[in-house]
């Protein structure tokens, strides 16, 4: 059992990395027209789980290029992912927000079918106001896909109140060599106004990109920060 779980976990990580790489390349404009269904090698439970892990980012290239031209196959696979992994009653806030982000992105970037998309579940954001900054920053970094333009405007507005705290989280994450957390925070900061100048966000994003380049998800985050918000170029 444990061995099987290990294999599934490894397999999920590999698929997540493959999709993240495909998205990042598409954001760089290096792979022609993007299709999520094109970067998924298979259409099984692991692929659907990978879509849930990456959330709205699986559709990020459409945010850059104005929506899916041929959304049929992508629409089908995203619907499957939403149906396969809905947030459970005891789901973490991160899980609910990630699901919600994927629904929002689907509505925004994919052509809706006759039945429309699932309703967006209510997501709690009290933690943005109350959590101490290290925990706030960690959680925000896990939701970096929601920093795509136009998504989660309420969450972005709440986070903007704590820009300094997110910037402190970036400092702490880099010191801990937690490149994924740093990249996610750097990406949020790229979207938010009034980032302290002395943080050195552009240099920080370049630094994190190079130091964390063995992780495709790091590359995806810093690429998104540059392509959508012009930071870290």
């Amino acid at each position, binding site marked *: 059992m444990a061995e099987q779980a290990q294999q599934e976990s490894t397999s999920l990580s590999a698929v997540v990395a493959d999709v993240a790489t495909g998205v990042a390349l598409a954001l760089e404009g290096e792979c022609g027209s993007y299709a999520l269904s094109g970067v998924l090698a298979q259409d099984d439970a692991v692929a659907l789980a990978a879509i849930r892990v990456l959330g709205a980012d699986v559709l990020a290239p459409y945010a850059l290029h104005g929506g899916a031209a041929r959304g049929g196959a992508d629409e089908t696979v995203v619907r499957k992912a939403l149906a396969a992994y809905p947030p459970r009653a005891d789901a973490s806030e991160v899980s609910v927000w990630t699901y919600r982000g994927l629904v929002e992105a689907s509505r925004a970037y994919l052509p809706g079918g006759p039945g429309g998309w699932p309703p967006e579940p209510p997501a709690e954001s009290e933690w943005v106001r109350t959590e101490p900054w290290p925990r706030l920053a960690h959680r925000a970094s896990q939701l970096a896909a929601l920093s795509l333009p136009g998504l989660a405007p309420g969450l972005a507005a709440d986070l903007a109140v704590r820009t300094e705290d997110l910037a402190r989280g970036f400092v702490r994450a880099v010191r801990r060599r937690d490149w994924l957390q740093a990249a996610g925070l750097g990406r949020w900061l790229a979207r938010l106004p009034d980032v302290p100048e002395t943080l*050195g966000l552009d240099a920080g994003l370049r630094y994190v990109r190079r130091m964390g380049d063995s992780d495709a998800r790091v590359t995806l985050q810093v690429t998104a920060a540059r392509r959508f918000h012009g930071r870290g170029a």
Partner: protein
Amino acid sequence: MTVVGEAAGGAVAGGDVPGEAAERAAADEPADPMAGPAADHALLDAMTVGALTWIDGMRPAFRLPAAAATEADPDHALKPLGELAELTHLVRDHHPLPAARGLADGLFRFAWEQTGQGELFAELVRNEPQATYPVELYGVFARAGLHHSGTEELLAVTTSLRHWRVAREDHTRTLGVLNAEHRIGLTPHADFDAVLALTGLGRCAEPWALDRHGVYGITHDVFHVTDWGRAPHRMPTPLAEYLRLWTPAWTETWLEEKLWDLVGELLAVRACLPGAAHDAAAWQRLAGAQRADGAVPETGSVPPDDIAPEDLFLGCYHSTLVTAFAATLARTAAMPPASPAAPFRESETAL
């Protein structure tokens, strides 16, 4: 303190104190509300008195050998004595509790006695006329109004040379030398602001790029600029804003690594910033690292009771002194920029 490359001293910044009594009277005033309602004065005071009590019991370990000028190791004997003098002097002058001031006063006098009322410095300068550490160390006492004429006659010559003005590698350390020169009344050998501009603080180094050595450097930049917390108003506003923004991130990072002396220095820096919030949670965590007898380990867990005394001293003296110093600054946060008797006002030129 533990800036790498600092030999003796670590001391410095300053000016003289013509009216210690008046300055002390100012310290008796109630703590300023800028310290914030979250500042737990009872906790801070217990930490200060506990730390000083432990340090007081460690006097034998601070004692210098009879032939100190030739036998005392600058890093392992003179440096601790310089830190003892620098930090107890601040506590002596500013702590609102008589018990803390009394302990600190006794320790400061002890340190001066160990130098043979300053005679040691004349010998050190004769032995190493190019070295900066005798100047930095002597500056601590000169700031307190304790002078030694023979030392000052020698320094007037050695620090007048073109050689003395050759740029040194460590700009933070150079700030310390400049403060010492000011305290002693010597002509500053370089422009303070120009040197500050070359340091980690002056450059506003990217806060995420600084390693432990870099952050130690910044804490000392602050101590030299503010005369060890006595003159927070001297911090240029952009640099105060830089510190306000990033000290919480550094404090958290090194709390997690249990590097208690750096945590103490960062909390001291925080207390030097006008209007910066008191970090009650960080103080609680530092308090958790303090032994029942008052010692604070430099790093890691609380040392066991059966540790060898010498190891206990070397592993705790610096962080314990820093704790007393930082807790005193936090206790008196936003104390008046300078008491009526304090030396530096707008007229000062060296800083």
